[in-house]
């Protein structure tokens, strides 16, 4: 009797992992997907928060991909474990605070652990040689396989024919001749394959799926670490870095200023944990103050809030300020746009 071989596929929600899983499914292998939530994943959060994104589809692309493939998807919360990857990457960062090579090794290692716990046979990723400058190069492929512990149970169907045969190929669990030899940054081969397989609606090819590759986000994270004097974070910290305007008028405090009603609602969930301000005389943003503001700092925050409220052209805006001392109201003159130093913006 033929043994039904089982593979766990890393499903990011992007096109490459979708295609890689499909290629192996088409060879009669039982495939289940795994997706890791690090806290830095782009999809979902911003779409759910901002008004301007209200009409964009709010689907989770990994779930959507799994549904297209007809496979189960296991979503793993790796927020805590992932901190060490972000804070101490052995292979360093990319252009920003993106530890891509360590990240790939980490995810394959977690998939390998899952594979062993669930008695699966091998792991699939959508990696393509030369696709990413940091983590998907010919030299990094064996590093990921070795450091993750997956070894030759790690199969990259999209570029497998450019790599030494892996265990599933050598053992005949899958036919190497039906695997692919994609190479380089061009997305055309993947798009052509997607069309051939009938996938027309998929997440943007090679679209950034991690906030850490974004320079603005990385700058805000670096600022957070500098302000705290240590490189650490909690989930709420990295969530808040995705929301609002961040202004740091001084080392000991910064302001998080909502940009629309959606962000106001989101920040409202954090209101009790921070000194906060909102306008009572005009419509305006909720402002959270992170740090140890003094009274004069809160007054400055009130003037900044007034600047970003509908009272920006009024002589006075009444602002409610709440901190450990309780709530009070203050009338302030909105700060002029030209008076806000550019370097305050993170």
């Amino acid at each position, binding site marked *: 009797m033929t043994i039904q071989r089982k593979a766990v596929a890393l499903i990011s929600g992007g096109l490459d992992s979708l295609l890689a899983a499909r290629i192996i499914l088409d060879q009669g292998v039982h495939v289940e997907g795994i997706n890791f939530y690090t806290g830095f994943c782009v999809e979902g959060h911003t779409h759910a928060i901002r008004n301007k994104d209200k009409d964009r589809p*709010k689907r989770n692309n990994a*779930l959507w991909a799994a549904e297209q493939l007809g496979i189960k998807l296991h979503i793993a919360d790796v927020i805590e474990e992932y901190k060490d990857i972000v804070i101490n990457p052995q292979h360093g960062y990319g252009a920003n605070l993106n530890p891509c090579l360590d990240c790939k090794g980490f995810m394959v290692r977690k998939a390998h652990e899952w594979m062993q716990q669930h008695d699966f046979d091998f792991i699939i990723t959508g990696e393509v040689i030369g696709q990413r400058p940091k983590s998907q190069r010919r030299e990094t492929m064996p590093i990921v396989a070795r450091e993750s512990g997956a070894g030759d149970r790690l199969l990259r169907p999209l570029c497998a024919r450019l790599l030494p045969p892996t265990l599933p190929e050598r053992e005949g669990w899958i036919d190497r001749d039906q695997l692919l030899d994609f190479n380089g940054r061009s997305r055309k081969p993947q798009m052509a394959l997607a069309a051939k397989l009938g996938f027309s609606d998929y997440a943007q090819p090679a679209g950034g799926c991690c906030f850490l590759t974004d320079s603005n986000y990385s700058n805000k994270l670096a600022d957070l670490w500098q302000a705290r004097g240590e490189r650490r974070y909690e989930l709420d910290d990295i969530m808040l870095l995705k929301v609002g305007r961040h202004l740091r008028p001084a080392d000991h405090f910064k302001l998080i200023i909502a940009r629309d009603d959606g962000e106001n609602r989101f920040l409202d969930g954090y209101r009790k944990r921070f000194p906060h301000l909102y306008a009572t005389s005009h419509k305006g943003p909720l402002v959270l103050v992170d740090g140890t503001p003094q009274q004069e700092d809160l007054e400055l925050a009130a003037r900044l809030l007034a600047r970003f409220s509908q009272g920006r052209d009024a002589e006075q805006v009444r602002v409610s300020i709440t901190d450990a001392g309780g709530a009070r109201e203050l009338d302030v003159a909105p700060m002029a746009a030209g008076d806000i130093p550019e370097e305050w913006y993170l």
Partner: protein
Amino acid sequence: MNLRRLDARHVLCPLPVIRTQNTVANMKPGEHLEVVCTDPGALNDIPAWCRINGHRVVESCQQENEVVIRIEVGDHD
């Protein structure tokens, strides 16, 4: 009928799905779980997760800023 409730408010996608997944893992087929979320994306994601994992959405609704989804747990295999 056994009904469990899960508070997944004030967390964003995919955390409501992960919490649902982890709660359902400890429930028996036929039991019901009611998930309350504030992320409207849950209205798409939790039903999608149910479809691919063999569970059934009994009902879902959006009230003010909250989404409530009731799930009947399917067979775990």
